[in-house]
């Protein structure tokens, strides 16, 4: 769905939701709601990466209707918590850019491997494009999966000896076992 279609939870229109709360229990709940919101929002809009420097332009972190937004510190707190549960990872040293795993890499790996096995595509080579954009996968959850994330997912499978990546300049493919 598009960003405009996303349905926000009640907290999104609650002004103090954008201020990191001092009360421990309240803060824990607040972070928990933000975590779920980030993951659900990225999943709903099929996005995989985020740049903190651009965050204030995203409606997720910035509700112009009530003139409230998350500051960088707060966003980092949420991302760090997501990282803790393997639902996010920084992809540059300054921790400006992040990948968001609304399914963890493990979960993606299982999903893709199950699909490949059940569609009898083991022992044949698939291009990465086919795997995430082909006609056959249009109704799959991993359709449209970001290439960089996909490669990380496939490396997980590689470690389990369930596939072998073949990355060349002109072609990117994978063979499943």
């Amino acid at each position, binding site marked *: 769905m598009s960003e405009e279609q996303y349905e926000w939870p009640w907290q999104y229109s609650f002004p103090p939701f954008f201020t990191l709360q001092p*009360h421990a229990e309240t803060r824990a709940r607040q972070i928990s709601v933000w975590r779920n919101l980030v993951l659900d929002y990225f999943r709903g809009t099929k996005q995989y990466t985020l740049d903190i420097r651009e965050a204030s332009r995203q409606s997720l972190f910035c509700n112009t209707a009530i003139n409230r937004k998350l500051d960088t510190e707060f966003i980092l707190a949420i991302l760090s918590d997501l990282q803790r549960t393997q639902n996010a990872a920084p992809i540059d040293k300054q921790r400006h850019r992040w990948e968001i795993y609304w399914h963890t890499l493990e979960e993606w790996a299982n999903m893709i491997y199950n699909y490949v096995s059940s569609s009898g595509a083991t022992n044949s080579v698939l291009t990465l494009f086919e795997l995430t954009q082909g006609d056959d996968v249009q109704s799959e959850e991993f359709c449209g999966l970001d290439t960089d994330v996909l490669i990380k997912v496939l490396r997980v499978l590689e470690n389990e000896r369930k596939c072998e990546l073949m990355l060349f300049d002109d072609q990117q493919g994978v063979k499943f076992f």
Partner: protein
Amino acid sequence: MRRRAGVGAIQKQRLEQEKYKDKGNEIQENQFEQMTKQLEVFRVNLEEFAAKHKNEIRKNAQFRKQFQDMCASIGVDPLASGKGFWSVLGIGDFYYELAVQTVEVCLATNYKNGGLISLNELRTRLIKARGQGKQHQEISQDDLICAARKLKIFGNGFSVVSVGKGQYMVQSVPGELSMDHTAVIQQVANSSQAYTSISILRDQLNWERDRAQKALGHLLKEGLVWIDLQNPTEKLYYFPSLFTACINSSN
């Protein structure tokens, strides 16, 4: 004829006074006996009345209130005993059930309102949760206040706070609300917003800055309010229990 203040006269006077006193006592005792008899008759009639209108009492909130008032006026508490006549009527059960369900709703919504819920919201959620049967639908504000009062026997965990204009809040966390804290809740409940601030309290309640700060600080510490630091002029303190979108949400 001149009365002679002799010893005999004094004794006679005293005797007569005693007689009057005895008569007075006698009259008093009679009256008491009569009243007791009358009350007994009244009580029996009341019980008959209750038995005859049992269904009405269960189903009709206004009738129920009138019945309660009637009992109260003669010093009878229909909810007092767990055994005997009244529980046979099922009236005790009704309030007991309500009280338990009140606790459930408070516990279920605690995570988002910090343990403070308006009686209106409580009532709405209870009605929704109790199901569609005809005898379940009518629950009045008075019923809830009555049920909530019963919960006081468990200590200070539950209390009903009046916020003026016929509105009430139910607090379900330990830790008492002082009169100042209650005043803040009342002020917000009566405004058209879910927040307050130091200057609002100074303006509306005529408080000194320190007093306002102290009250708000306590409410924040107890988790009953959230703080908003992005308001341009001053910090705002929000009650999720009074924020419409929160009240209406199911999560």
